């Protein structure tokens, strides 16, 4: 027990959670905490918009697997965090958001900068807390980090009234988290494992779909082992990209609306489908009624509510992905001699070749698939790629191969434009020794471009590659394909000169017209210690292909 203010207790509690960095913006209702940060060795990175603070914490969390922390004042500071919190929630990313609040006596009185952030964030956090007494702070912080980082991970918010921050109290930090209503199940049920193993042994055409849960539970080695044992190709969701090295013969890329031909066809041809750490989102299943029509589905997820939500599996398994994959593997090796599956293996390779053919290069005009392949060639394997949202994101997902988990960071569930750049900042803070590249669209980058300032101020060099088509490309693609080319509200008139914009912030800017020029600029960026923006003009008529029109069967792949 020791006596201290709520603000000091917060900092102490954060240190006990091994927090090294906070992304945030101060304001009146959180000032006592900022004052306590003055003397602390926790680094605070001043972002230029609270949304970016939340995305940076999220990027930090996804790159490192640890909890990211963001902070803001009450009212507008707190509401600016909301998009970032919702983004983290949809993608199960562990962040803790700390918001200032008006003093207790003013709550409910519509005081200056009061907002009901608990009410607002209840549906987009795993859990949230408003602190009522300073003495609760150690317990609440510990509980918040525990909830954020266990089970199905996700954001937790702590709302701190200003007078709680200044209140002095006896503080005890040795609290053991015990929550009667929260006991994640990690170990798979042996009977279900047995059923899954038997199905997979008998399968002629097994396919694995790996989602973000595989990455969250660091289950890549177990995934690869099982895939090789069964000769089961692995398709990933956007969130699962990197769960299997994408240069592996059994990696078939992403499935779904912008999935590869191989992934979409093989999932539809499977007789047993093992889905791990994925929630069967409409973007990955296409028409849910015709998804995997002749296959028996085994669904592994740590969140019991995901099982049966969109698809009723033949074998449900509530468990951590890593433990479930290992248990299934162990059960299978006990009774299985590797089968001959040359027909299936050949089918996989045949479909995979179709994808490679889509990467046509053309030095006159830069084509996005070839550009993605080029970036891959230059980048070291452990580089981190983030994306914005739209065509840029889908080109990166389809054509920029990722070889390791936590190296591809993208807003999947919410599809938040403006996510990639601040997430890259957070990822770079977590992993300062690897290059971090944001694959951007012009529209998305303009949503959070002001944080070029924080990347310069805090010497966090990022490489931003803007696929500059002068339009909201993905929306234009839908208008072109499904609305008879009635382009409306997609032309980005008044777009700035990105080279000058970068330079205005003290960053480096290049504009490139060919793959050769790109290669030179990109290599220079890799050697630079400031942020570099590379403006790559591309045609506004480019479509992201392959594409399955919304709501259709995954086999209805458009290739041109």
């Amino acid at each position: 027990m020791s006596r201290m203010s709520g603000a000091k207790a917060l900092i102490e509690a954060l240190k006990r959670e091994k927090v090294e960095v906070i992304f945030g913006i101060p304001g009146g209702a959180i000032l006592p905490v900022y004052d306590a940060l003055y003397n602390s060795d926790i680094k605070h990175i001043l972002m230029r918009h609270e949304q970016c603070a939340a995305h940076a914490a999220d990027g930090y969390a996804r790159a490192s697997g640890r909890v990211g922390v963001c902070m803001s004042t009450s009212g507008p500071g707190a509401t600016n965090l909301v998009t970032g919190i919702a983004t983290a929630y949809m993608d199960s990313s562990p962040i803790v958001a700390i918001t200032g609040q008006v003093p207790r006596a003013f709550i409910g009185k519509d005081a200056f900068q009061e907002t009901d952030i608990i009410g607002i964030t209840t549906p987009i956090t795993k859990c949230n807390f408003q602190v009522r007494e300073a003495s609760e702070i150690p317990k609440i912080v510990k509980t918040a980090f525990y909830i954020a980082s266990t089970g199905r991970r996700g954001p937790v918010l702590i709302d701190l009234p200003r007078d709680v921050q200044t209140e002095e109290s006896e503080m005890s930090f040795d609290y053991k988290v015990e929550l009667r209503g929260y006991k994640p199940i990690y170990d798979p049920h042996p009977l279900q494992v047995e059923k899954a193993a038997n199905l997979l042994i008998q399968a002629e055409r097994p396919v694995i779909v790996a989602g973000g849960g595989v990455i969250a539970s660091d289950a890549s080695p177990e995934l690869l082992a099982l895939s090789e044992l069964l000769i089961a190709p692995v398709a990933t969701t956007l969130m699962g990209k990197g769960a299997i090295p994408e240069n592996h013969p059994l990696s078939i890329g992403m499935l779904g609306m912008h999935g590869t031909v191989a992934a979409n066809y093989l999932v539809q041809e499977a007789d047993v489908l093992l889905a791990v750490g994925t929630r069967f989102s409409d973007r990955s299943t296409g028409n849910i009624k015709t998804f995997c029509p002749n296959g028996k589905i085994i669904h592994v997820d740590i969140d019991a509510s995901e099982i049966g939500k969109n698809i009723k599996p033949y074998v449900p398994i509530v468990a951590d992905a890593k433990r479930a994959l290992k248990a299934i593997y162990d059960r299978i090796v006990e009774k299985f001699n590797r089968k001959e599956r040359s027909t299936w293996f050949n089918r996989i390779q045949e479909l995979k070749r179709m994808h490679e053919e889509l990467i046509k290069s053309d030095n006159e005009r830069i084509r996005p698939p070839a550009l993605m392949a080029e970036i891959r060639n230059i980048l070291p394997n452990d580089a981190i790629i983030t994306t914005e949202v739209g065509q840029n994101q889908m080109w990166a997902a389809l054509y920029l191969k990722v070889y390791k988990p936590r190296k591809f960071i993208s807003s999947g569930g919410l599809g938040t434009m403006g996510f990639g750049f601040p997430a890259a900042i957070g990822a770079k803070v977590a992993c300062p020794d690897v290059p971090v590249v944001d694959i951007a669209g012009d529209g998305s980058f303009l949503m959070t471009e002001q944080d070029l300032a924080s990347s310069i101020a805090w010497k966090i060099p990022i490489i931003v590659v803007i696929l500059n088509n002068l339009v909201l490309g993905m929306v234009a693609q839908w208008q072109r394909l499904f609305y008879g080319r009635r382009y409306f509200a997609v032309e980005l008139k008044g777009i700035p000169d990105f080279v000058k914009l970068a330079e205005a912030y003290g960053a480096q800017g290049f504009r490139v017209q060919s793959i050769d020029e790109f290669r030179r600029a990109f290599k220079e960026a890799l050697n630079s210690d400031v942020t570099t923006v590379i403006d790559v003009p591309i045609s506004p008529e480019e479509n992201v292909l392959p594409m399955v029109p919304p709501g259709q069967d995954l086999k209805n792949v458009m290739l041109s």
Partner: protein
Amino acid sequence: MGEEKKTYMISALVEHRPGVLYSISNMFRRRGFNIESISVGEAEQPDLARMTITIKGDETLVEQVVKQLKKLICVIKVSILDPNNTVARELALIKVNTPDTKIRTDVINYVEIFKGHIVDVSHDSLTIEITGDTDKISAFIELMKPFGIKEIARTGIAALPREMKAIRMETE
């Protein structure tokens, strides 16, 4: 999926603190679950509350409701109650017009048959308290309608499994 729609009773033991009812009702709203009735009150310990929720739907829906409830950190235990092994009661207060003695006598007779109580009397109305399962209360309300009902307040169902018979402690 053409599954049969039925009324289900769900019993949830939850933390008894501010914000819990909000989290739960907000989850119902967000997921589009339509609840028929909900009743809440302190449970066996002062920091716990028991919620009884009735909902109409098929098995798949009810399974989702249970899972989504369990996912909330403030929810400790959830079970689907088997109607054959459950004590379920609802209380209603009904204010009925009784302009003359004849009507008043009729109403009092019905109240006796239904084992209700008169809890308030005025010159031209009676307020009746009646307890029972939902069918009984609905039947009583039907009987009172011709007399002219001024106001009704119903508590919603409170339910507990009969000893040792909570058939399905849902689910994994």
